């Protein structure tokens, strides 16, 4: 890997994803803190506090995969959009093998996800320290941050090739989705699309589903 090429590509992509990155960082800081919102009204270590925190954790749980999904999607779009807008002319006339170029783009995308994950982890640690909970309540800030990282990277890798589809493929894909929605509405026996995308174990987006709690028993 050429370090200078990686650095300039990272700097260039950072410029494009900066607004999404800022939003992601704000969300990653806010969501874990939502879990401990209102705990001051209950005594530390009490059952009341435990019940309150578990309830808040259940409310905040769906927000983690949503933030990871949005982050992965936005970074994927922002990573490739300048090349798509430029009809690939500039980037494909750079003296670099195209597979390596895609590798650099994907690697820089993953690096750009890391600050958000770091903020999520720090915010989760802060939330855990503020919660003041004792056993049998357990907190998993590290596991949650790792899961968030994997989910965001997975989304980034799944969405990247989709972004690169041609207009014709996009039209075909959107038509297919619309047909699937219409069929799933008309024929109640069929699983709905959201279930298929996120809950079916063969779906690449399956890891985004499931339990995402910062606190659990």
């Amino acid at each position, binding site marked *: 890997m050429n370090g200078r090429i990686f650095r300039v590509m990272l700097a260039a992509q950072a410029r494009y994803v900066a607004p999404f990155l800022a939003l992601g960082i704000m969300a990653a800081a806010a969501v874990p803190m939502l879990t401990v919102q209102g705990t001051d009204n209950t005594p530390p270590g009490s059952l009341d506090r435990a019940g309150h925190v578990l309830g808040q954790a259940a409310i905040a749980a769906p927000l983690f995969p949503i933030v990871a999904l949005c982050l992965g999607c936005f970074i994927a779009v922002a990573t490739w959009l300048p090349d798509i807008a*430029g*009809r690939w*002319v*500039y980037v494909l006339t750079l*003296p670099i093998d195209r597979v390596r170029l895609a590798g650099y783009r994907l690697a820089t995308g993953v690096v750009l996800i890391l600050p958000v994950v770091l903020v999520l982890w720090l915010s989760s640690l802060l939330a855990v320290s503020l919660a003041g909970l004792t056993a049998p309540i357990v907190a998993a800030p590290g596991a949650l941050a790792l899961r968030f990282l994997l989910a965001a990277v997975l989304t980034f890798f799944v969405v990247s090739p989709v972004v690169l589809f041609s207009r014709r493929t996009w039209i075909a894909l959107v038509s297919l989705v619309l047909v699937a929605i219409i069929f799933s509405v008309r024929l109640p026996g069929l699983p709905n699309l959201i279930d298929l995308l996120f809950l079916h174990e063969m779906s690449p987006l399956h890891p985004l589903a499931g339990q995402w709690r910062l606190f659990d028993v």
Partner: protein
Amino acid sequence: MSDFAIRTDGLSWRPGTSFALDRVDLRVPTGAVYGFLGPNGSGKSSTIRAMLGLLGGVTGGISILGHQSPQELPRILARTGYVPERPHLYPHFTVGQMLEYHSAFHAGWDATWADAQRARFALTPDREIKSLSKGETGKLMILLALAQRPELLILDEPTDGLDPVVRRDVLSALVEYVDERKATVFISSHLVHELERICDWVGLMDAGKLVAEMPMGRFKAGVRRLRIAGPAPVADGAPFTVLARETPPGSGEEWLVRDWSDGMESWFAANGATLREVGALDLEEVFVEMLRWARFDRRSA
């Protein structure tokens, strides 16, 4: 070193039902400044895009600087500066960021020259690309292509739409570079007079075909307008090629011929005709007549 900086053999591209490029056999001599002429839509840009691996479904052989395209594109692009027809730089970059970005990919990047040329072109480093005028973008494109110190420059209508002052700046930067480096230049344009001043080879495209390729001297000097008094002879067996015959008001004929050289006047006397005048054509007239001839030739076939 290969005799040809660019060589294509049967280069064809058929995006739909008809050919956009039809068996183009280009031979661009190493060290030449090759003008790639043709009207809009004749296939000049498509030929360049095909050579640089920007089109899918291209058939035929392409060799650039001794490397096969598209198989060895990174090697080719490391030695080739390319200015596309429409600039596709990143609009949110500043000039300075664009230079920094581009330089990272080119081992031969001459930062000192680039800085000096940027100042000469009055391009401020903190100006965003999207805020540059067409002329400033044109200057930046040629700067990016030249600062990588390429052996081959492929320029696709580099001065199209630029005002005369910017056009002169861009062309003089190009000429200076070629003088200094003896680089090969492949420049496409429909601005014939612009190429007349700088090119030593010419290729002429029309309707996806290469209809002529020759040294500029031969292209210009070999084409003549002949005024013949009285009855014109039969052209079969003439030492030149008759491209067109016209009968102007009055008597006699006007012939447009190519492959003309001094001394051929005697052929008319030997065939019982009187050659009244041999007129030179400027490059634009030659260009127009060559196209007319090529189209007539295709229709006849």
